[in-house]
């Protein structure tokens, strides 16, 4: 049976290798389009975060505190109250009467609101400095006025911060990529039915199990290959000086030990087997690639939903690791962040193997049902 499964696998791989549109599509998408898109997003993030964007401030007061704060901040651009402020839709207004200075902004615009909060803080500092100067003039010592200062310090290393960022992002990316690329290979499962070649395989001496296993492994190989290609594209892109994630990564420094890499590869392989067996079930049931596409769309959404849990800081109970995909995401994160073998990896891989076996069994059962094979 394994020999025949290998024959089916080799035939599917040969067919995929010769599918020029598929290979060109995957290569161009993985090596150029996706890295370029992420690089573009990274650049946009950079501009948004660190660009010297000026915020117009309508100074409707000549209060010395307001004037000092606005003129002292190079990111603020003071414009007079007589200028038509409607020309500057994103502006902050400062007015005052007697004892109140009003900083007027728009909370629905987060950047503008943060500028207003900064002005507010600067005004408070101005007020405090003036008060302390006067009290010092009256003979109160600096140490009495300001007995201590508070400093918030980060004890984590650059490597640890990098590991957390990688552990958060990687499971998500891996899951989304594997699902998306497996979906592209769904024709391995549905193509025989669509092209009317299935009957000739079914009347041969090959067991149904060999057909399903051979095809599932072909989908797995393709999904892993396409995902690796995409990661390579990103690495090449980054080595050329393009920022992939913008400033989000900060000063993080990624380092993976060989044992971590091996554990990740085993984890990703288990995950790929689960996803490909789901695709196999869908492809076996569907009549056409189009129909298969309708069924695989929810799979992508569910996978993204489960993958998002890798962003969470919460510690989950062991039972949660038994949920396929989610368990893979959490153990992937643990492998990267903790740097040691995730204790639940055995459970996760066991569940992966079980799900793969069950779904292969479901596909085989479907291969025996004429209502599925000859569905009109």
């Amino acid at each position, binding site marked *: 049976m394994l020999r*025949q499964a290998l*024959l*089916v696998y080799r*035939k599917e791989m*040969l*067919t995929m290798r*010769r*599918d020029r549109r598929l290979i060109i599509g995957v290569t161009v998408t993985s090596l150029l389009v996706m890295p370029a898109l992420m690089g573009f997003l990274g650049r946009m993030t950079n501009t948004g975060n660190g660009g010297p964007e000026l915020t117009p401030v309508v100074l409707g007061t000549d209060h010395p505190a307001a004037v000092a704060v606005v003129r002292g901040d190079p990111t603020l651009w003071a414009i007079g109250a007589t200028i038509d402020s409607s020309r500057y839709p994103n502006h902050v207004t400062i007015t005052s009467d007697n004892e109140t200075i009003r900083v007027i902004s728009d909370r629905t615009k987060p950047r503008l609101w943060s500028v207003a909060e900064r002005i507010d803080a600067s005004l408070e500092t101005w007020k405090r400095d003036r008060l302390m100067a006067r009290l010092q003039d009256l003979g109160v010592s600096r140490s009495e006025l300001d007995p201590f200062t508070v400093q918030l310090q980060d004890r984590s290393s650059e490597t640890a911060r990098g590991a957390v960022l990688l552990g958060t992002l990687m499971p998500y990316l891996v899951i989304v990529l594997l699902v998306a690329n497996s979906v592209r290979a769904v024709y391995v499962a549905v193509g025989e039915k669509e*092209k*009317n*070649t299935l*009957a*000739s*395989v*079914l*009347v*041969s*001496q*090959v067991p149904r199990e060999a057909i399903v296993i051979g095809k599932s492994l072909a989908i797995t190989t393709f999904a892993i290959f396409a995902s690796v290609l995409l990661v390579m594209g990103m690495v090449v892109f980054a080595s050329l000086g393009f920022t992939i994630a913008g400033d989000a990564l900060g000063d993080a420094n990624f380092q993976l030990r060989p044992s971590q890499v091996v554990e990740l590869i085993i984890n990703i392989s288990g995950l790929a087997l689960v996803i490909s067996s789901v695709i196999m079930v869908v492809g076996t049931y569907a009549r056409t690639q189009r129909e298969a596409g309708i069924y695989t769309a929810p799979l992508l959404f569910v996978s993204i939903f489960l993958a998002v849990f890798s962003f969470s800081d919460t510690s989950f109970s062991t039972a949660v690791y038994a949920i396929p995909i989610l368990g893979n995401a959490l153990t992937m994160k643990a492998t990267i962040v903790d740097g040691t073998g995730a204790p639940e990896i055995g459970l996760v891989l066991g569940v992966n193997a079980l799900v793969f076996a069950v779904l292969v069994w479901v596909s085989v059962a479907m291969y025996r049902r*004429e*209502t599925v*094979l*000859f569905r009109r």
Partner: protein
Amino acid sequence: MIETRSLRKVFQSKKKGQITAICDLTMRCGAGEIYALLGPNGAGKTTTLRILATLMDPTSGDARVDSLSVVHDKEEIRKRIGVVSYETGVYERMTPREIGHYFGRLNNMEVGQIDHNLAYIFALLRMEDFADRRTDDFSTGMRQKTVLMRALVTAPQILIFDEPTSGLDLLTAKSVVDYIRLLKNEGKTILFSTHVLWEAEKLADRIGIIDRGRLVEEGTLSELRERTGRADLEDIFFSLVSE
């Protein structure tokens, strides 16, 4: 030998309820014989052949291929049969030789035996010129020859053809018919369905006429002539089907 006894196949349709595709079908194709199954569209020909090819199970009744049950001895039957259908496709990114090797290996054949069989089939079907070309741009005739080759590479003793010349031009259809005749001379048992009456007239030792899932007449051409009192197979067919 292929035979069915009181074969019945009922499909469940959500929209149409129960559909009886075959009703008490009893027929027999002897060893080394060519049997033509004639009938209009929807008569139950394809369903009968699918049951005999082990692709479907009968609802009731019995069907045997080489004395083996289509329900209980599927694996054994698959070792003995070759199946060709008018709707069968070919792998578009493979050459006929690769397809032949793939199916040969799936059927546990040695590479040397596959090469030997392929050389014979390619010569016979005049496929040498395109045996190593990918099938993407093949004509319908070239595709049908590839399908035939795929079914014959294992040198099966029993062949089941579902409208093997459907959609082919006259020249290609004739070469397929000639080939079927040659297979009979090699002692193969052949059951085929067709719409084309002259094929049945030329090839078949015995003819079965099926209508609405029932076998309405069966026999040699001369027996059918005798029973219906008509000389021409077309007249015989229309008299039986329209009644």
